[in-house]
């Protein structure tokens, strides 16, 4: 992949229920490593990925308190990718489908994530070198 290219991703899965979510984030991380500008359109359950009130917890079965457990939170993954993009000097844009946000009550999102519509996905895709969509699977 040529440095400076722009990639658009559309993603549908919620934060923790599927290995697709961590794979998706690995792809975003790799795209930034390659010097790509990254656009994300989060659709359906994926709008919860940037929810600001995700909270880590301890786990008595693991015998660890909240600090020791360091539960992974997708909002922190997004924030880490935002920092990485800034450090690399590339763009990292994240838009949530607004109607999907309203349905789930996850309106409060971390800084740098916005609200939009499928028109934004089309704008992202039209301006990108390529687009990858990752839909929810049964």
């Amino acid at each position, binding site marked *: 992949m040529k440095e400076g290219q722009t990639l658009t991703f559309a993603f549908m899965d919620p934060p923790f229920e599927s290995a697709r979510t961590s794979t998706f984030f690995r792809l975003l991380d790799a795209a930034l490593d390659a010097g790509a500008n990254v656009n994300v359109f989060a659709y359906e359950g994926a709008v919860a990925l940037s929810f600001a009130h995700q909270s880590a917890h301890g786990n008595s079965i693991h015998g660890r308190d909240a600090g020791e457990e360091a539960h992974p939170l997708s909002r922190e993954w997004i924030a880490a990718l935002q920092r990485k993009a800034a450090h690399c000097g590339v763009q990292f844009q994240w838009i949530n489908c607004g109607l999907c946000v309203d349905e789930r009550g996850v309106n409060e999102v971390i800084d740098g994530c916005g609200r939009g519509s*499928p028109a934004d996905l089309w704008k992202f895709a039209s301006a990108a070198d390529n687009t990858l969509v990752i839909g929810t699977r049964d």
Partner: protein
Amino acid sequence: MKVLQVIEQAFRATGEEQDDTIVWLSRSMRGAGADLHILLTSHAVSYALAKAGSPALSFGDWRQAHPADIRNDIRELLASGVEITVVQDDLEERGLGAKQCLQGIRQICRDEIATLYDSVDQVWQW
């Protein structure tokens, strides 16, 4: 840019969303000027049938007022200029080969899919 939306997963979130998520997404993007072609494959071939419906959802005294009407959504997409194609082999595998499809939907064999893919700029597999 022309995008082929490949819809494979059928009835995904249709209860909650009162529609198919990707059919809805396509209608919304079409309204924003997107140039789209839809390919119905696997279980989603049932969306092409002229006679089918979603039974209303009810729990106790709660009843869903507007269940998904995917047939109408498909008709609206066709009316907006979106081409829709269905895989004949997938219809036949599900015993739906003899059923009538909605007017305006083109049927192709599985070995014609590659040609369809070649005719667009991007393929989005949902």
